[in-house]
């Protein structure tokens, strides 16, 4: 099991996830992953003055899935959309102090969810 391989930061975000919850009227929303592979993430964003003014997530998944979701929201909250769009899964994993190699795919979920949520917001016009 990977738990000993999880860094202190990962365990911190797993135990106390930031920005957890649902958003009533999000400006952008996305759901990525699927239950067959075990991870599902729903991401909600509120946009004001081209910045992510608020962000919330819900995740069904393992320690890495929950931690990367939490870290991602922390990294992009308050940031301009253009900057947030560029967040990579590598950046999220690095911010967490690294992830065990078999868990890196969990960080893909978070980065993809953000891109989708921003796209969703932009398509709304």
């Amino acid at each position, binding site marked *: *099991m*990977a*738990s000993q391989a999880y860094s202190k930061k990962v*365990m911190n975000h*797993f*135990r106390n*996830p930031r920005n*957890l919850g649902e958003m009533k009227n999000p400006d952008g929303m996305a*759901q990525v992953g699927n*239950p*067959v*592979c*075990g*991870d*599902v*993430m*729903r991401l909600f964003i509120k946009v004001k003055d081209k910045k992510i003014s608020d962000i919330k997530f*819900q*995740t*069904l*998944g*393992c*320690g*890495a*899935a*929950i931690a990367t979701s939490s870290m991602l929201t922390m990294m992009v909250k308050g940031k301009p959309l253009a900057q947030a769009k560029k967040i990579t899964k590598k950046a999220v994993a690095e911010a967490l102090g690294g992830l065990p190699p*078999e*868990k890196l*795919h969990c960080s893909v979920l978070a980065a993809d969810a953000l891109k989708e949520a921003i796209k969703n917001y932009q398509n709304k016009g």
Partner: protein
Amino acid sequence: MKKIYLDYAATTPLDKRVLKAMQPYLTEKFGNPSSIHFWGQEARAAIDQAREKVAKILGCYPTEIYFTGTTTTSDNLAIQGACWAAKKAGRGNHLITSSVEHHGVLDVCQALEKKGFKLTVLPVDKQGIVDPQEIEKAIKKETILVSVMYANNEVGTIQPIGEISRITKKKGVLLHTDAAAAIDYLDLLVSNLGVEMMSFGAHKFGGPKGVGGLFLKKGVKLEPLTYGGHHERGLWPGTEATALIVGLAKALEIAAQEQKTATRKVGRLRDQLIKGVLTNIPNSYLTGHPIKRLADIASFVIEGVEGEAILLHLSDQGIGASSGSACTSGVLKPSHVLTAMGIPPQLAHGSLRFSLGKQTTQEEIRKVVKVLPGIVKKLRRMAPRLSR
């Protein structure tokens, strides 16, 4: 915080009595059992006694007991050994096993298939039981052996080995069983089981890691897998680990003596745990056979949560358990056992296994029943509400 270990199916703590029996052979009685002098004789005698002890408990001849490194190495020796011997003698090239075997059996069978043998992997029913009729149907002229585990380590289901042996005997094929999970709780008499080969490993029943046993019925020919000496009649060459072998025999002796009491006591606690979980956690389900199951295994699938996440929270509360979810597997695939039983991947991800032991107390079970619902609730609240 008091720590609660509930992963006995993964490994067990070394029994103090076993450690005591082993100690002289880790210290002053260090001789090589093959040496002619006194030090050698002393070690040789210890191994002979260990072998006799094991044979008595299994109800077989000492010459039918071999000491190896682990259950897995015993599985390899039994299955590969029998298959290569049969091929050498021109006696068939087909083997049969079940879809819920431990990797120590399944991987061996699949490796032999790649090397030119024919393999049949039989399905199981929803509760994990192999149908003896299916085995009978699958046996053909070229079949060398059938390998079916005694009891499953993930979900606890006990296989009808006795019934299967009547079929294999009728058809003249070998029957091997991986008994790793069964030693503390099930009948160990090989004549009752009707098997020609049986594997087990000491660390699952209070013995040390690094030593396993193989019952090999007289007259069954095995090709050795490794070379280098006469040890274990040429089947497991290498200087014997006297201390480990002594440990295995002592642990088996204790397991046999305590079996009746253990099965009753542990079974009762297991039932309390099962009741506690199913009652207090909505949409949780027991996996494996409800009655034909090992006394120590309480395995579940819980909807709407992921296994590793549950384990991490349990660990924070001092509780150690395990899971068959993809995220805990290292290969990102859910447990093949749960899949073979028809459990869909979404549900397999919420798999949770508690395996109890002789040291487990009622207090510990109460604590688990108390904290688990809260953990599940917390994780379910964190997840998106998904439409079916």
